[in-house]
């Protein structure tokens, strides 16, 4: 069985909506230092805690095998690296095609900050925006920080081939039940 891209999923039954995953995501990607005083930009997480009626759950990139965001990208700024879908943010022109293409709303355009200051385009006088989405914390040895941080263990990194095998095994048990004479 060919391996598929891993991705992080949230469990709506466990999630309490605390946004600790969002904070951790931003901190891990942008902040040097361990305390809130070191954050010098708005928080731009790469996953999005979303409430629908009574259920709260983070939404994040599925690292789709056929990544529509990558296919839609004008500048080829979105690409596959091994099994991850990544954005080369310097290439991004803010065209929004990826936003339209993504079935989950997992990509967002955010303003670029350098040393705590928003970068403004000279002629347009508006901030430079770039695509931002989950990169599975690929530079981090211990993997996605959201998974590690969640106080409710409501997030997990799914490895699809293992997921399938485990479910198949569970299914066997139910089939035995079906054929019990």
């Amino acid at each position: 069985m060919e391996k598929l891209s891993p991705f992080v999923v949230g469990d709506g039954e466990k999630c309490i909506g605390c946004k600790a995953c969002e904070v951790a995501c931003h901190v891990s990607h942008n902040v040097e230092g361990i305390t809130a005083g070191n954050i010098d930009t708005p928080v731009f997480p790469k996953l999005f805690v979303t409430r629908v009626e009574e259920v709260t759950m983070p939404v994040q990139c599925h690292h789709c095998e056929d990544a529509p965001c990558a296919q839609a990208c004008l500048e080829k700024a979105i690409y596959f690296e091994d099994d991850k879908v990544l954005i080369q943010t310097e290439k991004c022109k803010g065209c929004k095609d990826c936003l339209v293409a993504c079935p989950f709303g997992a990509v967002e355009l955010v303003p670029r900050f350098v040393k705590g200051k928003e970068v403004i385009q000279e002629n347009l006088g508006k901030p430079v925006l770039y695509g931002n989405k989950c990169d599975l914390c690929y530079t981090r040895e211990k993997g996605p920080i959201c998974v590690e941080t969640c106080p409710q263990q409501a997030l997990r990194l799914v490895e699809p081939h293992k997921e399938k095998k485990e479910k198949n095994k569970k299914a066997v048990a139910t089939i035995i039940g079906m054929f019990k004479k």
Partner: protein
Amino acid sequence: MLDTAFVIGDPDLCIGCRTCELACVLAHTKKQLGTEEIKSVPFLPRLSVVKTEDISVPIQCRQCEDAPCAEACPEKAIVHRGQAIYVLAEKCVGCKNCLMACPIGAVYLTREGEGTCQKTAYKCDLCAEVADGPQCVKKCPTKALSVLLPETIEASIKDKRTNAVRNA
């Protein structure tokens, strides 16, 4: 009331020979054994023979009436067609939601053909495009697999109820 049929394997009869997997691949690739072209075909059966310590049995899609895979699909790429739950590969973006939603691990993703698509969902489609129905059922040497049609199930329920009253 029921709309879909499904294939089920009997673990008491299954000997774990994987003939069903082979039959599945041949049926979906429309290739013949012993030919030259079969050598280049990737082995991607839509059912998986799962072996535990004491038994073996193929696991395949139950074509759930409430198909969670279809409900989970953001692209509406999984539909009810004929008596099966069917993947419209051209619509699939490979998000793996169906894989996550399926309770038995009957959906997986793979690369099919040479199109722009990378990997798309695939699962048992009851051999929708094969003339004489599910080939796994046809080829199983121990007759461990069978198709359960909706009307068969409905009839059997009624029978069982009748028996239950008689035996009470």
